[in-house]
C-alpha cells in the first residue's frame, strides 16, 4: 500500500552516549537528525545509461524544492547520475546550498557523511535501490520503491533511542502510464514451498507444497501427502499479494540477516513463477511470520500462510 506508512524501531536498551555535549536520551531538539530521502524524478526514456529528467521529472524537481524549501535543509547529497543531480538542483539553487556528490555504489560513505552531521536536516536523492539501502543503514525498516514510483519521500528521524520513518508523497501522482503498466504486469501463477528443519527435523515434519493460481481460482497440492485443497478467490488474491516477486527479491539481504541469528528455526524454500515465465527464489530461516514481517515487511503473511497450511497438510491422512 502506498500513502503514509510509519514504522518505529525501538529497543529496551538503557544506555545513553554523550558526545560533544550531545546527549542521546529523550528526544532533544539540538540532537535530532532528520534525513529526507527520495528517488530521482522521472527521467526521459532512452537507451542512455545516464538520462536527464523528462518534462514531468523537471516539474517534480521544482515541487521537491517547493516542498522542502522551508524545512531548514543544511546539506544536499546526490549520486553521480544526471537524473539525481537534476532532481536536487532546484532545491539547492533556492537554498544556496551546494550539491554534494557521493557515488551510487558508495552507500556506506553517504551514510557516514550523513551521520557525521549529528543534527539538522539533510536531503539525499538516490535511486530505487540505493534509497532503501540507506534507510536500512540508518536503522529504519525495509522499504520498497516500485519501478514506476517517483513520488515517494522518506523522512527518517533519529532522536534518542528512536528511529522513525515516515513515507510521504510529493509532486504529481504516478503518471497513468505507470498505472497501466502495473495492471498489465505479469501475474504470479505458481508458488512452490518447502518447510524443513526445525529442532526435531524429522523427515515426516518436512512439508512441501505447490500452489497453482489462475485468474480467480487456485489450488494447493502436496503430492507426498496426497493432499489437495481448492483456494477461494479471496485467498488467491491474498497469496498473489503476499508472494510478490519484486518484494521477495528486495527481501533477500534482510532475510539472510534474520536467518543468521536463528538456530533450530524452520528453513523456508519459496519459489514463485510469474506469467512471463520468470521465477524468483528465496531460502531463509524464520521463527514465524511476525519475525519475517519485522525483517521484510509484507512477506510475513506468506510465511504465516505456509505455517497454517503445513499444519493442515501434516494432519491430512
Amino acid at each position, binding site marked *: 500500500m502506498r500513502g503514509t506508512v510509519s514504522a518505529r524501531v525501538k529497543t529496551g536498551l538503557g544506555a545513553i552516549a554523550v558526545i560533544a555535549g550531545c546527549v542521546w536520551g529523550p528526544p532533544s531538539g539540538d540532537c535530532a537528525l532528520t534525513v529526507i530521502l527520495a528517488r530521482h524524478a522521472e527521467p526521459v526514456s532512452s537507451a542512455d545509461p545516464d538520462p536527464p529528467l523528462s518534462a514531468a521529472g523537471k516539474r517534480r524537481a521544482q515541487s521537491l524544492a517547493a516542498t522542502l524549501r522551508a524545512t531548514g535543509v543544511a546539506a544536499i547529497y546526490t549520486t553521480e547520475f544526471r537524473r539525481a543531480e537534476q532532481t536536487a538542483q532546484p532545491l539547492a539553487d533556492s537554498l544556496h546550498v551546494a550539491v554534494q556528490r557521493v557515488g551510487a555504489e558508495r552507500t556506506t560513505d553517504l551514510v557516514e557523511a550523513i551521520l557525521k552531521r549529528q543534527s539538522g536536516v539533510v536531503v539525499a536523492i538516490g535511486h530505487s535501490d540505493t534509497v532503501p539501502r540507506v534507510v536500512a543503514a540508518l536503522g529504519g525498516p525495509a522499504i520498497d520503491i516500485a519501478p514506476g514510483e517517483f513520488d515517494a519521500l522518506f523522512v527518517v528521524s533519529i532522536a534518542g533511542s528512536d*528511529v522513525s520513518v515516515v513515507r510521504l508523497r510529493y509532486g504529481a501522482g504516478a503518471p497513468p502510464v505507470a498505472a497501466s503498466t502495473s495492471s498489465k504486469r505479469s501475474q504470479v501463477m505458481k508458488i512452490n514451498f518447502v518447510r524443513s528443519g526445525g529442532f526435531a527435523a524429522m523427515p*515426516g515434519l518436512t512439508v512441501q507444497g505447490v500452489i497453482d493460481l489462475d485468474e480467480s481460482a487456485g489450488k494447493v497440492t502436496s503430492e507426498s501427502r496426497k493432499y489437495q485443497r481448492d483456494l477461494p478467490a479471496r485467498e488467491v488474491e491474498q497469496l498473489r499479494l503476499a508472494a510478490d516477486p519484486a518484494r521477495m527479491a528486495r527481501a533477500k539481504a534482510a532475510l539472510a540477516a534474520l536467518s543468521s*541469528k536463528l538456530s533450530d*528455526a524452520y528453513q523456508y*524454500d519459496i519459489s514463485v513463477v510469474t506469467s512471463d515465465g520468470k521465477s524468483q527464489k528465496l531460502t531463509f530461516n524464520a521463527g514465524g511470520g511476525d519475525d519475517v514481517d519485522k525483517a521484510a515487511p509484507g512477506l510475513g503473511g506468506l510465511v504465516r500462510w505456509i505455517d497454517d497450511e503445513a*499444519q493442515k497438510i501434516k494432519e491430512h491422512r
Partner: protein
Amino acid sequence: MLTAPHRLPGFCILPPHILVHIATNSPTKELRDLAVHALELDHSLRASRTTFALQGGLRAAHPAAAAAPPQEKRTIYDAQHSQNLPGRLVRSEGQPPVADNAVNQAYDGLGDTFVFYLSAYQRNSIDNAGLPLVASVHFGQRYDNAFWNGQQMVFGDGDGVIFNGFTGCIDVIGHELTHGVTGSEANLTYQGQSGALNESISDVFGSCVKQFKLKQTAAQADWLIGAGLLASGIQGVALRSMKAPGTAYNDPQLGQDPQPADMQHFVHTSQDNGGVHINSGIPNHAFFLAATSIGGHSWEKAGRIWYDTVCDQNLKPSASFSAFAKLTARHAALLYGAGGMEQKAVMDAWRQVGVK
C-alpha cells in the same frame, strides 16, 4: 546511565541500538565492522543482550563477570499462541511457581542449565557475563518447534499428535540455551558441517545438563535427545540418539531417524540448512564414544574438552568436523596430558566415526 563518549567517525552520534542494527544488517562489511568497533568502545554494553545479538561477533573478556557474583536472572513470557515475541511477562526471577506448567518447566530448565554451566565450567550464563535468560512459551498455534532467535528461547506447544510440549525436556532447554553459548563463542555458521557442529554442541551439552541433573555417569545415561517429547501414538523413543544415531524413531507418519553415525553415511541435502540436524549425528556419536571410553561423569572430562574447544578462538565460524576434531585432541592434551588416556579416547572416537 551515562557512558564514555564515542569517538569513532561516523558513528559517534549513534545510539547503541542503531549501531547494533548497522552491525547486523548493513550491506557492506566496512560499515558492519565500524559499527561493531564503535560498540566495542562502549564497555557498558558488553554485558547487554544487545551486544550479544551480534551473533557472538565480540569475543571480548567480560570484566563485569568478575565483579558481581553469578546469579541467574530468568524471565518467562507467554506468547499466548501468537507469534509476537516476547509476549506477556508471566514469571520473573525469584517469583513462586504459577498455574501454567509450561512456564514453570521453562523456568526450572533455564535454572538447571544456568547451574550446570556455572558448576561445570564456571561459566556465568550464556555470554559468561550474567546475561539474563529469557524464554517465551506457548508460541504460535500447535507449533511443532522450539528455537533460539539470537536473544531468547522460544517454545511451541507441539500439536499434541506428534509432540508433547517442548518445555518438558531439560535437554531441549539445555540444547536451546547452548545455541546462545555457541553464538557468543565460536559462532559456528548454521550451514553444512559447521552448522552440524553447532547443532551437535547443543545436543552434547543438552544431554550433559540432563546427566548432571540426574547425577548419571556416561554408562548410566540414555544419550537420547528429547526423550518423552514424542506423543504416545508415535513409534519412537526420542528425536535423536547420540549412542546409536539413526535409531531414535521409525514411524509410518514421521519416517525413520535419518541421522548417520559416521562420515561414510554423511547426508548431502539442501534442506535443513544442509542437514544440520541430520549430520550432527556424527559429532554426537564421537562425543558419546569419547565420554563412555573416558568413563565417569560425561561433563567432567569429555564435556570439559568440548567446552574448551567451543571457547577456543582458533575455532573458526566455518569450522569443519575435522578442524573441530583436531582442536578437541589439542584440548584433551592441554587438560589431561599429551598421549594420555583422555586424548587417546577423543582421537579414537573421531577415528571411529570416520573424521580425520
